[in-house]
Structure formats: C-alpha cells, structure tokens
C-alpha cells in the first residue's frame, strides 16, 4: 500500500509506530526529523503525490483539539474537531484537503494519549455536552485496522460523562467497533452520496451499498449511526439521483433510529477552490455555476436553498424521520 514510510526520529520506538510498521513489511522506512520536512513543503504537487502517496508517522505537539467551524455542529454549543491523521486514502474530487495541503502523503500522529488528555482537559471545563468530531482532515476509519484509532479513542471518550465523539467516515472498516460494546456517546457518521456521484467524484471509496451495509451492521450491534449528506452536488437529474439515495437509505437502514442526518450543499473556501480547480481543470464539478462571496465558493444562495429545502422536505416526508440538520454557511 505504501512504498515508502517516513518516521520521525523521536517516535521511531513508539509502540504504535512499531505496530503500524509491522503491517507494512515491504515498505522502505526512512527516518526524518520532523514530518514537515516531507509534508506540505513549498513546490509540492498534490495531484502527482496522490498517485503514490507515502505514509508519514509523526507526533503532534500542539493544536491537537481545535474549535469546530460554526456550521459544523448539531445545534450544540461546545464543538471541537481533531485529526489523528492528515489526508486520506480516498480521492474525492471535491475534498477540501486538496486545497488545504500541497501534499497528498498520509500523516498519522501516533501520540493518541496526548489527544485524549487534551479531550479530557476540555471536557472537565463544562458540564454541558461537549462534542469532538473526528474525520475533519482525514477519514476517521479508513485506516482503522492499521491505526487502531477507534479502540483507543472510544474507550477513553466513553469514560467522559459529557463527551460525545463523532467518527465521520466513508469507509466500511467497522470491524473494530463491532468487537466492542456499543457506546451511546460515540456516533459513527457515514458520508453518503448517490451512486452516480460516488462513481464520478468519490474515487477509491466503498460503494453506496457497502457503506449502507457497514452502517446497518453497526445499527444491529446497537451503535448510534448518523448520516452526513454533505456535500450535496447539484447534478443533472439531481432530484432523481437523491430521491433514489433516500429510498436506499430507508430501505437498507433502520431509518427511525438514526441518530441524525445532516445536509449541506457543495461549498469550499475560495482559495481552496482555486487550488483544486487548477489541479483538475477538466473536472465538470468545478465548472458548475457558482457564486463566490465571503471567501467561499458555493451555489447561488437561491440554488443552495432550493437544494436543501428539497432534500429536507424529501427526507422528512418519510415515516419517522430522524432529526435533520443543515450545514450551511449562514
């Protein structure tokens, strides 16, 4: 999977480093001082690196847990995000990481214990529910069998009374969760799109059927499952595509027990959009009719409203619809 693995000298002997390296016996390991020597340097090209990215094992020293952007939560007050990884093994054409980083290498921060300590420190500051979102700069579970991320974080967070953990993913790597007892404060949130969108834009990701099947397994095991329909892409046959998606959701999942559904139309910070468009000028998505204001590129307000209104109404028209939240810039 990774021909070359860079490892920071200081964590060469870290048990998690050794465990991860043992999964890649054929990879060549290269020692570096700091992951920044290889990751996100000037003069790097995301598109070229994405063809054969390296793995980098590193330690995150600061800014481990960050306040979530305002539109990110579920109408909750205390929202934070964190990333035990940077970048992703999937290749969604709309992914903002392509605009944020010049590098497509995958970084895993092995010092989970420091992240968990920071989560605890934030949680004790309030008695109100406090949400921690994973999967912002990566896919939470795509490499779970290798990183052991879910077990470490779930076990720790489930001991904190007021803490909630959301694991956002497009993957089907739920085996580790199925081996554990379900926790009410850990939500596995699957990002879904119509099959046509997955095929055209979400390269190398599991199919819709596979994601739904993984979500169903978790539901049957008693885990709270949420759905994230974000970004919603305005394509030809938009209504037919999304209607069919909603039908598959209601058919394949236990719809009424879903924890929540969030909907958000395609949007990107302007500078990320520009970078990504230059990386993939031939991509139809980046040629849609967009508006650009407040530093964001998105559909025209009226179009965005129509998209979200229609999706929300269509979901809510189904029996026992779980709570639906909008993720929009307003």
């Amino acid at each position, binding site marked *: 999977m990774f*021909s*070359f693995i860079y490892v920071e000298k200081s964590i060469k002997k870290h048990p998690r480093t050794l465990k991860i390296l043992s999964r890649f016996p054929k990879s*060549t390991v*290269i020692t*570096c*001082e700091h992951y920044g*020597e*290889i990751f996100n*340097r*000037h*003069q*790097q*090209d995301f*598109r*070229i*690196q994405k*063809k*054969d990215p*390296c793995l980098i094992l590193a330690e995150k020293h600061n800014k481990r847990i960050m306040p979530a952007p305002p539109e990110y939560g579920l109408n909750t007050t205390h929202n934070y995000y964190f990333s035990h990884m940077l970048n992703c093994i999937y290749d969604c054409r709309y992914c903002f990481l392509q605009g944020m980083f010049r590098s497509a290498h995958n970084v895993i921060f092995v010092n989970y214990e420091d992240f968990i300590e920071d989560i605890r420190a934030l949680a004790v500051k309030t008695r109100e529910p406090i949400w921690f979102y994973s999967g912002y700069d990566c896919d939470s579970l795509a490499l779970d069998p290798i990183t052991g991320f879910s077990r470490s974080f779930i076990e720790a967070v489930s001991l904190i009374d007021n803490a909630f953990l959301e694991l956002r993913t497009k993957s089907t790597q739920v085996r580790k969760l199925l081996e554990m007892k379900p926790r009410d404060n850990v939500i596995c949130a699957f990002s879904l799109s119509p099959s*046509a*969108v997955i*095929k*055209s*834009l979400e390269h190398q990701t599991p199919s819709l059927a596979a994601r739904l099947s993984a979500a169903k397994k978790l539901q049957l095991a008693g885990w709270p499952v949420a759905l994230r329909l974000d970004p919603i*892409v*305005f*394509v*030809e046959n*938009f209504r037919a*595509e999304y209607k069919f998606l909603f039908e598959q959701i209601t058919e394949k999942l236990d719809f009424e027990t879903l924890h929540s559904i969030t909907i958000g139309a395609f949007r990107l910070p302007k500078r990320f959009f520009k970078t990504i468009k*230059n*990386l993939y*000028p*031939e*991509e*139809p*998505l*980046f*040629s*849609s*009719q967009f508006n650009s204001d407040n530093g964001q590129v998105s559909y025209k307000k009226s179009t965005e409203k129509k998209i979200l209104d229609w999706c929300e109404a269509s979901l809510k028209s189904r029996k026992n619809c779980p709570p639906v939240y909008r993720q929009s810039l307003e």
Partner: protein
Amino acid sequence: MELTGTTTLLVALKAEAQPLIDHYKLKSARQHPFPIYANEQLKIVITGIGKCPSATALAHTAAFFSALPNHIWINFGIAGHKDHTIGTAVSVSKVINKSSQQTWYPNLIKLPNTLVKSLTTYEAVVGDYVDDTLCDMEAAGFMSAGSSLHIKSECLFVFKVISDNKLSDAKNITKNLVAGLVKMHIPTLEALIKKAEIKVQDARNGKLELGSELFEKWHFTQTQKSQLREGIRRFRALDKETLWQDMELDNCATAKDVIENLNRRLQKLLPKF
C-alpha cells in the same frame, strides 16, 4: 538544435554520461557553458565535479531551455559508501549538505534491486567513509538549485551507483569501471524515468491556448482573454461532446458579446455523472 524533452539527467563526468549517450544515441546539442547531449525526450548535461557546478548547470538548463511543466530532473552518477558493494544501485531518500547540514528529500520511486539510502555531499573526495550514508560531491548543489528554482519536489530525483567503499576507495575508480557501472544500471534508470513520467504526465496542465482566429475577428482585453479562457475551460469540462466554437458567434459584434454568449450557454449546463 531545438531542445525539447521531458527529462534531464545531470551527471558530473563525461565518463558517467558516455554509456548513456551511446545507449540513447544522443546528439551533442551544445558544448558551452555545459556540454549537453540530447534527443527528443532526454537531455544529459555534464555538470563537472562539485556542488556549485551541479547547481549552476541545473539553473542554466532550466532557465535557457523551455521545459514542459513537471519536467523530470535526475542527478545521476557514482557515489561512495563504506560497506555497500560496488555496483549497488541506490535511490537517494535524503541529501545532506555536509558543510551546512541543510537537508532535502528528493522524490522516490520503487525500483527493482535498488537500495534506498541517505547521501551526504562533501566538498572533496572522502577517504574515511565514517557515516552510514552515501557520499558524493554534487547532489546537495542539485537539490539546492532545484528548490531555489521552485522545481516541484516530485520532479527531483537523485539516483546513484556505488563506485567505491572501504575495501576499494575512490583512487581505484577508472573510466572503464564507471562505464561498466553505468551500463549495468541503464535498465533501472530507464524504469525510473518511465515511472516518473507516468506519474507526472496527466498533471501537466498547460495554459489553455486560444486560437488566433478569435483575435483577428474581435479585440479582447487581457481581462476578457482570461474570462474567455475560463469560460472555455468550463465549457469543455461540462460538455465533452460539443466544440465550444460551434456556438453561433457570427452575430457577436464585440468580444464582450462572445463572452456573454459563452456564459449564456454555460448557465444551461450542469455536471452530468
């Protein structure tokens, strides 16, 4: 001779270059300030020994010969290592400038029968082989110039063949030995060039050229040219079947009309998946 090509090899010595010149049937393109041999795909620049010549040769070649975006640059040649057997091929993962301790990480591609190691660039020939790194006198100059010239790190490679070690030091290097070592690794070098090319080629998004006939008919300001370019990019992405020129432009009196016409068409197009 027009110098085109997608890959340039920078080698220190004529002895290192000669087997490649013969193999690829390269023609002498110029002799000053650096001898260059080339065919349509490949250039070899003989830089001379040392960091400075290596850096200057890269800068000179990059500046004077139009290179496609994502042109591949490879520093190729012989190097020493305390233990490794003479003839071992090495992809260099990290280049250390001995005098400044500055480091660079060239790009890597998995190659058959090739070690991956760090390399230290020294000011002079090394006799004691203390470090567990390769030693040479050029790679740091090459990497330093590449990074100053904003060449993408994915396009910079350092590939060496071990020519000396503790048992047989640099004094024993002969032209024949060098030629033999280089010849032995032409297939590996070829694999490197091929794989590197495959990786970068579809990321070579050249600037969209606009047909000159447009400019004969209408006068476009610079801003209008960039609006037109962006409109055509979007049109091509959204409608792969129609040529944008097939739009009815005859009724357009001005460049502004052309752009408005294009934008009206674009408004009706949605991504089809």
